């Protein structure tokens, strides 16, 4: 199997099994970082650029695709992330009633709650990436980012740029 096809299949699977643009983060990290195809630094860059760039924030996967495979990696990522959500087009036409049943609501609730737990774990490990050497100011950035994002009043790009500026001041 070519690298391109393998990357496409991984991103397609992870997008198809996740809810939301960032929901696939724990899955992609497990498939690409744990296997040495990408690094956590690349994931962080992708997440930051995804927040600063235009379009849906799920485009962080395109940034990661570019870092792994250049322009063809980016194109693969666009295709792999665009296909799974489109299942909703025939699904809403044919099975709208099923989508509104309590059983389906339960499926979505279960997947969403599990994704929340997985994202919490991923977020924690991104904050404490340095392990025991994680600096106090990095923990403070993490705490402030949680509060500001949860409140939702400040643009996510501001949080990313703020973190970068503090890093430039204190992380050298």
């Amino acid at each position, binding site marked *: 199997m070519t690298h391109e096809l393998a990357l496409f299949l991984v991103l397609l699977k992870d997008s198809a099994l996740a809810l939301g643009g960032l929901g696939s*983060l724990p899955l992609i990290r497990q498939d690409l970082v744990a296997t040495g195809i990408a690094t956590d630094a690349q994931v962080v860059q992708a997440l930051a650029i995804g927040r600063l760039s235009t*379009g849906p924030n799920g485009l962080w996967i395109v940034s990661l695709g570019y870092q792994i495979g250049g322009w063809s990696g980016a194109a693969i990522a666009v295709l792999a992330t665009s296909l799974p959500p489109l299942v909703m087009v025939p699904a809403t036409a044919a099975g709208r009633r099923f989508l509104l049943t309590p059983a389906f609501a339960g499926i*979505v609730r*279960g997947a969403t709650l599990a994704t929340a737990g997985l994202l919490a774990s991923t977020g924690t490990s991104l904050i404490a990436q340095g392990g025991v050497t994680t600096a106090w100011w990095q923990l403070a950035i993490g705490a402030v*980012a949680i509060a500001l994002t949860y409140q939702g009043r400040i643009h996510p790009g501001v949080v990313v740029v703020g973190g970068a500026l503090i890093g430039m001041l204190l992380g050298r």
Partner: protein
Amino acid sequence: MRELVRAWIAIGTQSVGGGTSTLLLIRRYIVERHGWLSHREFTEAWALSQLSPGIHLVALAGMIGQRIAGWRGVIASVAGMMVPAAFVTAAMTAAYGLIANEPLARAALSGMAPATGGMTLALALIMARDARRHGPAVIVDALVVIIAFAILTFASGSSVLVIAVAALLGAFALRRERPESGRAEE
């Protein structure tokens, strides 16, 4: 059709940071400016898009495109929103790649990592808050979140398996909302 593509390109390239800013632009172009969908149709499409796998806004673009111009509308809408925005994203990544190994960029990354980590944690809290049920059922819902967290943190278990088992469990055990809570099913 040309107008439809133009509207989606504008949505994809003018919204920064995704999420709400993209959603607001979709509403402005599709409902308010062009009147392709009514407010009610848009709200329903948005609610259904929240059930989709992957990027919800792609599902929303696809459903809106389908209503306006069939399958050609789906392709025009999704490609219009995604391709130019993806080009911008890849170009930004390429530009950042030129300076990524500079000491200052490395220092910036040491601040961006906890910032993106914190944002990810906040998103987890928001997802859990919005999906949880009210009343005693909230304990079961919280347990699902905590167990998923623990499996990935302490056992490095398979994320896919965790989601699949939770979805299956959800079909049977997480479906009921307390009737007296009056909260609409999501």
